[in-house]
């Protein structure tokens, strides 16, 4: 397979010109930047729900505190990215209402919940590490308010990452055989989901994608997927998780990872029709919008007065 890599000068040029909110933006740029920021705001706000429901099931006080901190962090990330979107003309109410009314799609990984405490650690570790790899690429992007928001977010994601390692380590070192088995199964269940999270394999025309051309998307899906596997597979191995070569294996000759291809048909179906917990998250957001509506309206009326 020959890889067609654009010449470095072109690449530099694509990411060299950065934009502030108040600058004149190329046609279509504002909408594209608003889309990426509002998409992330929703992912942060909904993505925290599977964790939030474990707060009152955490097995000890320290874990509960760490989980509460994580949940608060993620909601904060939702606010920060929603502010970026709002400055570009997409209100946070709209982001949430569009989701509650089924108009926006959710990333595949946020369609699920956790069945056990032992599942939460490995799943969180896979999620956080992939988010970090994503953000470290995206923060090199051309829209500066979004890049700044990501740099703030990364610091906190790093805390979540170490928390998830610690959590998995506790299960693997102190847990019963059954608990360790659940952690192993969680890894095998979530690895393909996260491989799919990075998006479909690169097409020949990915460089024509407007998000990519605007420098809002920085690296290709396959590049990110490879970087992520390099980062995360050794971490799991060190935690005593068996990484089946059939799932992911580094090919020394090609200097690249081979991995079991995620079920793309199922991934698309989940995103289109909703996964096991999609309905729950939607109704939670809907309820919270209704419950807080009166307070929100009063606050905004007061601000406008």
């Amino acid at each position, binding site marked *: 397979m020959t890889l067609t890599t654009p010449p470095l000068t072109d690449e530099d040029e694509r990411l060299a010109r950065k934009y502030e909110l*108040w600058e004149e933006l190329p046609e279509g740029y504002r909408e594209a930047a608003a889309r990426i920021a509002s998409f992330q705001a929703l992912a942060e706000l909904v993505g925290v729900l599977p964790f939030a429901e474990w707060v009152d099931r955490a097995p000890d006080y320290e874990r509960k505190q760490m989980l509460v901190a994580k949940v608060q962090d993620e909601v*904060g990330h939702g606010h920060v990215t929603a502010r970026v979107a709002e400055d570009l003309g997409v209100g946070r109410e709209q982001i949430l209402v569009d989701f509650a009314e089924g108009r926006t799609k959710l990333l595949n990984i946020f369609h699920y919940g956790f069945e056990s405490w032992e599942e939460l650690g490995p799943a969180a570790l896979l999620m956080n590490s992939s988010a970090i790899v994503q953000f470290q690429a995206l923060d090199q992007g051309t829209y500066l308010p979004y890049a700044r928001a990501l740099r*703030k977010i990364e610091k906190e994601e790093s*805390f979540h990452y170490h928390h998830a390692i610690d959590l998995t380590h506790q299960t693997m070192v102190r847990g019963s055989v059954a608990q360790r088995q659940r952690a192993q199964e969680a890894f095998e269940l979530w690895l393909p989901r996260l491989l799919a999270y990075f998006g479909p394999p690169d097409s020949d025309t990915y460089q024509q994608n407007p998000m990519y051309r605007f420098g809002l998307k920085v690296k290709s899906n396959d590049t990110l997927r490879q970087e992520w596997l390099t980062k995360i597979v050794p971490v799991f191995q060190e935690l005593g998780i068996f990484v089946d070569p059939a799932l992911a294996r580094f090919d020394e000759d090609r200097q690249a990872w081979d991995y079991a291809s995620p079920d793309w048909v199922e991934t698309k179906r989940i995103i289109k029709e909703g996964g096991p917990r999609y309905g729950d998250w939607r109704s939670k957001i809907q309820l919270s919008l209704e419950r807080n509506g009166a307070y929100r309206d009063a*606050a*905004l009326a007061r601000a*406008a007065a």
Partner: protein
Amino acid sequence: MRRGTETDVYDVFAKFGDDATEPIRWVGSVRSGDPELAWHAAKEIYTRREYCTVLWVAQRSGMVVSGPEDEAILRTPDRLTYRLPTGPGRRRRARIKAGPVQPVPR
């Protein structure tokens, strides 16, 4: 320049760490219907990790902000060359060239 318009957006400024000489920096914004609540939101959202020593919020509608049209007048070096260090430098070289100053005869 122009007046900010949003009454429910507060820009957040903070100073982090022990270094007292660090300037207060703009760190982001929050949306709120009330200034004190905006400050609390800023505290919860922007001071989660680093040790924060100063935290301010300013209502965006109360701010005057520069725009792209102000770029020319903000570029001091281009329009006010006499303020640049090269001005005094040129004078200094001329002074050296002129040689030692003769004392006033008494």
